[in-house]
């Protein structure tokens, strides 16, 4: 008797072939059979009218800390994501000496925007120092699979201490880093991440940025020797020329050591429309040489967020606004209380009272944002208040201590006609979701649903099967996750059952579910019926289950 049989679904197996109507049988956490399954099962899931696909794999996350108190990595799981790769951008939570915890917490707070309480003893089980200890700490509560990277900054900090943010490594230190990386790989790490961009809580470059090329080369030697595992890099993504130089560097490391490499993010911008195409052209040149260099591109558009608490360049074409925003907070608040100042600021915005510039904004949150306004279009709120749009921005802000955030949706990476073909490029790796990071800035969840709603159903850049392949089998192959990404007998039963006509991400919303009442923005899923992780139902029809069947995988 099978444990579970999923019946009558359109089985899309991850290889890109046309889906077929079939049943999928599961036994002992693995796929036992696919086809017309006649055997009995302890549980039957009716997938009539639904797609049955491999669980989605998210290759760029920062769930390292969240997994300490949330083994489901909410809300990633409900979007059909069954495996996540944390530890990106040079930062993991191991190996980490107890004495260095505060240093690393500062780095995580900087990039993840988590409150300090999230890292205290109360919430984090800080018992480990080595990589095996971290994996052992999180694994019992996992409902999602975790294929962790080890961060270069952590390797460096362990070996060099405070000097890791001061200088290049000596040959002896590089040798020690090689040994430590090798141990981490044997303890569960699936690769190494590094960053040329990130900073710590004090604005100081993270340790990986002090590495010379010989250090990175030596560490990549270990990745090669340990089975040809992944090097993940954050290049200077804001500059196409430097990014192209990094692509060349990654190609050399890939060819020399026989390893795959990936870099992120790559995104499209109307202000620099040639940048992403140039980057992808260079990748193609290096791939033609035999190098494995995978650019990660996100599916979702980038939304711009701002409040009047801090000067934003979104307002930098409005002279009177700039003059006010430049002032210290106390003076800024006082200036905004002056009716004549506000009148002049509104006059900056044109004869329509700012409707063109502000009317389409959405009130998105902030600790003091009126709940009646959150999620609503500012133009509508302004009319309700009997104000113009610019006047509403000013008044809502000053009525709430300026702590109200406004969102300009689709500020960048939003031109589907340009982005669809780039995402569909076989050399492009869909990723860069950043799940678990940027908590207080924007939602990093639902990119998979958006792939189907925007680029399958709306633009047609992908067939259903191509889209599934892109975020399952392709991802598993790129990262060497041998047991994941396909529906084949014998493989792990990571499965998502979804409605191809409705799968999507829902509207962004603010929640306070991070330890310490920390704010984060999330998006729930729609159209995802059932998610199985290693053969256990982890999400079903709108609710999480108690299953804890996730595993450290690689």
């Amino acid at each position, binding site marked *: 008797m099978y444990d579970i049989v999923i019946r009558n679904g359109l089985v899309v197996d991850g290889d890109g072939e046309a889906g077929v109507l079939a049943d999928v049988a599961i036994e002992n956490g693995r796929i036992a059979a696919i086809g017309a399954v006649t055997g009995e099962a302890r549980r039957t899931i009716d997938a009539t009218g639904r797609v049955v696909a491999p669980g989605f794999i998210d290759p760029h996350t920062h769930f390292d800390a969240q997994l300490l108190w949330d083994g489901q990595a909410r809300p990633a799981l409900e979007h059909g994501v069954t495996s996540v790769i944390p530890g990106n951008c040079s930062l993991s939570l191991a190996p980490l000496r107890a004495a260095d915890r505060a240093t690393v917490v500062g780095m995580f707070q900087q990039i993840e925007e988590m409150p300090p309480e999230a890292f205290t003893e109360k919430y984090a089980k800080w018992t480990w120092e080595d990589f095996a200890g971290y994996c052992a700490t999180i694994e019992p509560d996992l409902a999602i699979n975790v294929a962790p990277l080890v961060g270069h900054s952590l390797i460096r900090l362990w070996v060099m201490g405070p000097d890791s943010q001061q200088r290049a490594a000596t040959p002896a230190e590089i040798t020690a880093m090689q040994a430590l990386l090798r141990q981490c790989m044997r303890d569960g790490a699936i690769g190494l991440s590094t960053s040329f961009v990130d900073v710590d809580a004090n604005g100081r470059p993270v340790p990986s940025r002090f590495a010379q090329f010989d250090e990175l080369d030596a560490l990549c030697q270990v990745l090669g020797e340990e089975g040809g595992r992944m090097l993940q890099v954050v290049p200077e993504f804001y500059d196409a020329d430097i990014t192209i130089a990094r692509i060349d560097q990654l190609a050399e490391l890939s060819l020399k050591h026989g390893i795959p490499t990936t870099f992120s993010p790559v995104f499209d911008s109307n*202000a620099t429309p040639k940048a992403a195409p140039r980057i992808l052209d260079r990748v193609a040149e290096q791939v033609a040489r035999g190098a494995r260099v995978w650019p990660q591109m996100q599916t979702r558009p980038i939304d711009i967020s701002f409040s009047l608490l801090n000067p934003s*360049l979104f307002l930098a074409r409005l002279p009177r606004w*700039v003059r006010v925003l430049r002032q210290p907070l106390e003076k800024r608040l006082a200036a905004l209380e002056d009716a004549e100042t506000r009148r002049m600021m509104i006059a900056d915005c044109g004869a329509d009272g700012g409707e063109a510039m502000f009317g389409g904004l959405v009130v998105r949150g902030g600790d003091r944002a009126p709940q009646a306004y959150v999620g609503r279009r500012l133009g509508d709120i302004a009319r309700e208040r009997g104000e113009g749009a610019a006047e509403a921005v000013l008044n809502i802000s000053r009525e709430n201590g300026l702590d109200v955030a406004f969102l300009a949706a689709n*500020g960048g990476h939003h031109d589907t006609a340009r982005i669809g073909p780039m995402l569909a490029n076989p050399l492009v790796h869909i990723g860069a979701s950043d799940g678990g990071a940027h908590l207080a800035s924007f939602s990093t969840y639902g990119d998979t649903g958006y792939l189907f709603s925007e680029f399958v159903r709306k633009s047609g850049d992908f067939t259903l099967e191509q889209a599934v392949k892109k975020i399952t089998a392709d991802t598993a192959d790129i990262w060497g996750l041998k047991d994941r990404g396909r529906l084949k007998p014998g493989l792990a039963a990571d499965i998502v059952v979804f409605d191809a006509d409705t799968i999507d991400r829902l509207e962004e919303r603010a929640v306070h579910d991070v330890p310490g009442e920390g704010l984060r923005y999330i998006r729930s899923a729609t159209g995802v019926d059932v998610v199985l992780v290693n053969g256990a139902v982890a999400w079903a029809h709108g609710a999480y289950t108690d299953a804890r069947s996730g595993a450290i995988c690689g």
Partner: protein
Amino acid sequence: MSGDGGPCPPTEAVIVGADLAAGHDGAAELVLRIRYANGVVGNVLLDADAGYALMRNCDIDSLDGLAGQSWRKILEGV
């Protein structure tokens, strides 16, 4: 003026334009277009702090006033 009556070529890099862009972290960023002395135009990306500092150093209140400013004003603002 140059010998043929046209404007003298700049002897150092000059800001020739500015656009807003959406940054990876959801903040608005400033994309400056810089024309170098050899005629090549390239981009420099600034965050909000650097962008506002640049405007202050140029003594302007809007991005629209950046065109024609020396690239050195950027360094003063960083």
